[in-house]
């Protein structure tokens, strides 16, 4: 796994990017709040109108189209919250190694048949406090990103292990406090990220993908997940080609005591 502690390349750039994304997330939360208020009024009254109209009328057909359009707007605010929400919706204790092991079928199903999946899960007992659905979404987005970089063939490795960071060796560009972390690292042997792509990888709606079904918030949702769980996310080149994406999550305190 990439050692973020030893790599200080681009520290200032990454920190600036992280600070900027945090500011964008605050802005996005305000937008989501105001926008949902507008959608609440529009969709509520639209639904009332639809209950009073003959479903075969032209007007009813037009309102169906309005409903679809507003539904897409509502889905967009939901998507924005994957990036911008500032706290987990349903935090609960989880064993990250067991979580990844259970997730393996979903991980394999998202990748081309020619990609081998290897799990390296720490033997010791680890515990994190996460929103499970949010955690799954974050890991699968990292997997999607790795899969796109590999195409039809390759090797994907997911490791889970504990890192203890003190005040002197905090990873580059991260807003992490000293302490114990679980690191979920997703490593591929694909095309790798250029420095430019790496610096923009967490920006909302940034994508190098051709597949339209995977555009959207992409890795910025992983950043949002990490921030609201007081963690971090880091990308580093893999020796020999490819990328190692590391997701840092604080160890649950009970585990440290």
């Amino acid at each position: 796994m990439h050692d973020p502690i030893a790599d200080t390349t681009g520290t200032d750039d990454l920190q600036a990017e992280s600070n900027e994304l945090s500011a964008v997330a605050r802005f996005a939360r305000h937008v989501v709040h105001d926008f949902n208020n507008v959608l609440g009024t529009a969709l509520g009254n639209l639904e009332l109108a639809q209950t009073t109209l003959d479903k075969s009328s032209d007007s009813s057909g037009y309102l169906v189209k309005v409903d679809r359009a507003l539904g897409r707007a509502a889905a967009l605010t939901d998507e924005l919250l994957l990036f911008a929400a500032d706290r987990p919706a349903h935090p609960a204790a989880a064993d990250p190694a067991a979580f990844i092991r259970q997730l393996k079928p979903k991980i394999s199903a998202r990748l081309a048949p020619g990609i081998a999946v290897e799990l390296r899960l720490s033997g010791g007992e680890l515990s994190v406090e996460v929103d499970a659905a949010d955690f799954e979404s974050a890991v699968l987005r990292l997997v999607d990103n790795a899969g796109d970089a590999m195409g039809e063939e390759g090797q994907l490795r997911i490791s889970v292990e504990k890192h203890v960071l003190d005040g002197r060796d905090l990873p580059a560009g991260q807003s992490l406090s000293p302490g114990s972390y679980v690191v979920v690292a997703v490593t591929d042997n694909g095309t790798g990220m250029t420095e430019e792509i790496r610096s923009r990888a967490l920006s909302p709606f940034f994508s190098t993908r051709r597949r339209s079904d995977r555009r959207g918030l992409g890795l910025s949702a992983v950043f949002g997940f990490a921030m609201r769980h007081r963690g971090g996310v880091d990308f580093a080149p893999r020796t020999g080609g490819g990328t190692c994406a590391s997701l840092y999550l604080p160890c649950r305190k009970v585990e440290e005591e």
Partner: protein
Amino acid sequence: MRQRLLVLDDDPDFGSFVRKVAEDAGYEVTVLEDAHAFKRVYQQFAPHRIVLDVVMPEIDGIEIMKWLASVGNTASVILVSGYSPHYMKAAELIAKSGTGAEVTVLVKPISISDLTQALNN
């Protein structure tokens, strides 16, 4: 006797949506846009249930929740908001720590069925 519902939301068009759904559910409904009138109307109307927008321009919804707790409110409260987890959580805690009144949280947009279900619970 019909159940009484007091609605406070600064958007009158959302308030009218809640009124229509609540009246169809059998409620006698009063809708307020002005938060300053809330305390007076609350005492006169004696609602069984309250729909409250947590974030409004002039009065913090949390202030209203604190006031409701201070007067021993027993009406169940449905908190609505676009997205304000801090406010929602704070208001929910205040409501629950006060009088034991039931609190439901709904995030806009809200469908007729979701609102009806919350009103019927």
